[in-house]
């Protein structure tokens, strides 16, 4: 195992498999293929807010132990939710020796967690370790003129201690979009919550939120929206179909994972794209066409 263990999380193996496929292809192209953790469990899904409930930290810590045991020093995730849960657990458990001890004592079938495994989102790795410059160098099909709205949602940015960028004025996705030669389209609700699991119980509320997010991006002129979270993706795509007729613009909005955008620009495996995205790309020359 190299230094960095890739933690997929459950959604990436099911509904969000396009996310994983495109990310794997992109990292392969950058010469740093993702190496999946051998045995992993669900991240815990929702970070528990009760600070005396160690039970709900077990899932995360167990994954940190698995990384530790295969000799990795850091974990990288794609799903923002997994990132958030794992990293908050790590911070919570490492802050207080007593907590760590209790959790280790409970999981006596595993080696102790010794602390110190870093948790990163893949975007951070690209920005801080690979460097956006080298990504730019790998682009074969520049996305010139494509107007892309960066949708952050909450879990990449909040709470501040674990966020990958400034919670109120994040730049990382915009910078990334520029790296691919596309044009970032800033909009007011880019860090607004998508409504998460409320989609099950109170879908009206999620629809209202999505309406705000989608229409503000479209008004700002976006043709594409990128996200880093399978749950946001699920809600946004669902609501987009539902709200189609009431959205401000006739024009279509293609919602894709940020790694899919990179895969298009690298001309590698993208996973399935929405039909509207294929249409948008028709006007964009491929490397072959550029050469000619």
């Amino acid at each position, binding site marked *: 195992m190299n230094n960095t263990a890739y933690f997929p*999380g*459950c*959604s990436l*193996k*099911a*509904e969000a498999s396009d996310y994983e496929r495109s990310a794997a292809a992109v990292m392969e192209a950058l010469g740093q293929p993702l190496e999946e953790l051998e*045995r*992993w*469990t*669900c991240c*815990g*899904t929702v970070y528990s807010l009760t600070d005396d409930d160690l*039970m*709900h930290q*077990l*899932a995360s810590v*167990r994954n940190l132990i698995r990384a530790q045991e295969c000799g990795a020093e850091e974990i990288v995730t794609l799903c923002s939710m997994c990132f958030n849960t794992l990293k908050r657990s790590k911070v919570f458990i490492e802050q207080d020796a007593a907590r760590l001890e209790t959790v280790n004592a*409970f*999981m006596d*079938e*595993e080696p102790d967690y010794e602390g110190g495994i870093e948790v990163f989102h893949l975007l951070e790795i690209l920005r801080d370790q690979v460097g956006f410059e080298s990504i730019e160098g790998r682009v074969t099909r520049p996305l010139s003129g494509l107007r892309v709205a960066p949708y952050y949602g909450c879990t990449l940015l909040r709470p501040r201690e674990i966020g990958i960028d400034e919670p109120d004025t994040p730049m990382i996705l915009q910078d990334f979009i520029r790296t691919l030669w596309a044009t970032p389209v800033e909009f007011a609700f880019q860090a607004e919550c998508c409504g998460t699991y409320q989609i099950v119980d109170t879908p009206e509320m999620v629809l209202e939120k999505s309406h705000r997010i989608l229409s503000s991006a479209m008004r700002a002129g976006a043709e594409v929206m990128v996200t880093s979270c399978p749950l946001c993706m699920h809600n946004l795509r669902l609501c987009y179909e539902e709200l189609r007729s009431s959205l401000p613009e006739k024009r279509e909005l293609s919602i894709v994972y940020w790694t899919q955008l990179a895969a298009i620009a690298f001309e590698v495996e993208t996973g399935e794209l929405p039909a509207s995205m294929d249409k948008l790309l028709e006007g964009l020359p491929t490397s072959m066409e550029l050469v000619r």
Partner: protein
Amino acid sequence: MSIPSENTIRIYVMGSAYEVPRGLTIMDAMEHAGWRFTRGAGCRSGFCGACSTVYRHEGDYRLRFVLACQTEAEDGMYLVQLPFTPAPRVSYTLAALNPDENVLLQHYPEIARCVSCNTCTKACPQDIEVMDYVQAALRGDIAQTASLSFDCIQCGLCSMRCPADIKHYHMAQMARRVYGRYMSPITEHLEERIVEIEKGVYAEEVDALVKMTRGELEEIYAARVVE
């Protein structure tokens, strides 16, 4: 009650002490002590999961989980049996379901409550990685759920212990059936043979054999070429 000797041990069945010979399974030891099972014994060979037993060693805080028919009784065991698990199972029509990655979660949504505490694995007398198969189910990996749970004898101990009230073994049974039906390829020559039999390809030959005398059959048998 006499003191345990070299050839005997003392066990405690639901708190009461009994002296029994060494070298018996827990099941045999309890019978020796005078229990006659209706619950708690089935196959007596480790295949049916009827004899789920919880015990603790004198002086130890930890509960342990075994099959009474497969485990030798030891001195100082405090024993109780859990022969029934009130775990609901979900009915389904295998032929009609959509075997996609959500099928297990749809039927057993409570698997999403798993906190990865691994208590189920520690309770499994078959040494199955129970948590791992629940986790595989959660991410829609039916093949992995099926293969990790293959040795499950549905004893119910995992479900009795799970803080998230997950019904592991029912869910896993469903996973194995979905895998068997939809993901494991059918061998072609099986279908061919069924068609042949339906068409009566072998009827004449077998009819002739049916009518043969013992002597005739003996001759054919003796001339068999063993593959």
